[in-house]
């Protein structure tokens, strides 16, 4: 199967921004990294998994039209979050699994970036103790 992007970019980026609010400050270079990471991960998955993902993204994009009269990408931030929360807690297991899959890809794309991990203060170094101060945390 071909890349998810750019055809699914609008809905996927909207999902990523809802899942990880900091993603709203990504420029095109950052989004390019996110999409490359996601594409790279998906390319190793069976075709059926890729098809199911595309279908779920279509569902995320168009199902809000029935309740709110707008596609997902046209909803405000609050409504997007509420819609995703509905999917997260949906009574149908298949919908919850679909949400979990899309959420996982959003997190993979964002936290797979070197800049993102630096921003949260993650600084593992192959030099280990030589690179980090040995300050023992106080305990009660």
């Amino acid at each position, binding site marked *: 199967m071909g890349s998810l992007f750019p055809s699914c970019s609008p809905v996927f980026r909207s999902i990523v921004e*809802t*899942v*990880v*609010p*900091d993603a709203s400050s990504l420029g095109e270079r950052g989004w390019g990294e996110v999409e490359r*990471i996601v594409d*790279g*991960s998906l390319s*190793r*998955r*069976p075709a059926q*998994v890729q098809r199911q993902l595309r279908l779920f993204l279509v569902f995320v994009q168009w199902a809000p039209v029935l309740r709110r009269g707008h596609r997902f990408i046209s909803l405000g931030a609050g409504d997007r*979050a509420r819609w*995703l929360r509905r999917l*997260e807690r949906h009574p149908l*297991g298949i919908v*919850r*699994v679909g949400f*979990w*899959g899309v*959420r*996982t890809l*959003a*997190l*993979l794309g*964002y*936290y*797979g970036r*070197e800049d*993102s*991990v630096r921003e*949260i*203060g*993650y*600084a*593992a*170094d*192959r*030099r*280990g*103790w*030589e*690179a*980090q101060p*040995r*300050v*023992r*945390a*106080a*305990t*009660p």
Partner: protein
Amino acid sequence: MTRLECDVAIVGSGAGGGTVAQELSSLCRDKGLRILVLEKGPKLREDEFTGREHEMAQALYEDGGGYLTAERTMTLAFGRAYGGSTVVYTGTSLLPEERVIRGWNVPGIAVEDLCRRAAKFSEQNNVHLLPDDEINDNNRLFVEGCRALGYRAEQFPVNVKNCRGSSLCNLGCPNAAKQGTHRVQLPAAELNGVQVVTRCEVHEIGNHRLAVEVSAKAPGDKGEESAWKPGEYEVAAKLVVVAAGAVNSPALLLRSGLGRRLPRLGHGFTAHPAFILVAEHEQSITNFVGHPKSFYVDQFAASDHYFLETCMYFPFITAKSLKGFGEPHRSFMKAFPRLQMILVLACDQANEHNRVTVDGSGRPVVHYRFTNEVARGLVRGGIASARIFFAAGAKRVHMPFAEPAEIRAKEAARLDELEKEVAFRPEGLGISAAHLQGGCAMGSTSENSVTNEWGQVHGLDWLYVADASLFPNALEINPYLTIMALADRTAENIREKLA
């Protein structure tokens, strides 16, 4: 199609395959036998272990670390590389328990024998306890929390040499400190003349024949090229040892048509399903430096079906383990330098549903449903972990099965009622598993098992299995040394056969 011959073909180079390769290698040196190890994954150069999460997960794990069960409710993490999963696991090295091995009820398998054999590999792999000054805060706080609660925290012996404390064990040690089969058993085997062929997938096993395909290294991929040219091969072997892991070993034998004569093939899959608990402290702690997995609590394994291990995972794995999204999720991720982590593992049991099958293309499919006992184990382990965090001074805990997920220290009383409130929905918990077991269980007959106590497949005296798929039931500890002990038995039986 290239045709080759050998005396012994070993499929897989992890804890099982690497051990068999080493233990048989003297036959190459002394008797001129040809022994091949056929490994699906690549062999990475030392400088290719960068410690970057996404990059190394793609390079070293099957499906980039995201292999899903058929139900899509659990991720299975297993290695696909020269050294198999021993390249990516944390090096914890425990001996099997007498209670569990007795429960396997396999004639000829005794815990004393397994421990004796495991001790040999412990010595080879420099298994030892890390000194106190190499224990980081993430581990130390676990011990102190346990002590305050009266829980028995024990230290993991680990297989490291000159560990620098990079904390990157699960992405392949960048300092050559972790002593997996890629550092110890495989090099020893190759010195004696065993040939390890990487990027080499075995599609099917026939009567003393293996249908094999070698792939080229794709542009941008890590690892060396295979020793063999890309293409299809037919390998004729006097003896075959399948050590491709608890997912790929039963799948290979099923693809090869052995399901008809072995009704239990693929059955009895167990995994120690696990999830990560995270807590935030007031101050930064040493967590992404130092060995990540130094302590455990197993006193609840028999009574409550869970055990706890310290752990420290990387940003994406951590993010995936936190429930929800948006600001509450972000607030935990932004606290990364202040996070303490515990891994809760459930002691699952073999049952009729959980098994490995293959789809129409021959790809493995793992079917796994969570029993009530497993769900209870995970929930109780999570609650125990939260108590440990608070006893260690954490200000808040993320509890993925609670609503809301955040529990502050002053709300710790919520833990008392939590077990009753929980509606267990595995797809929201980020459950994963790395201790994959069963599928080619040992036993006495072809009706109740796949192999005998030596790993020889029932009715086929030239075909063996030598990995965790041999386990008739979950081991309740990390399986690494037990796999090596069983593989040692298999090698001994083969040496006697070839003598």
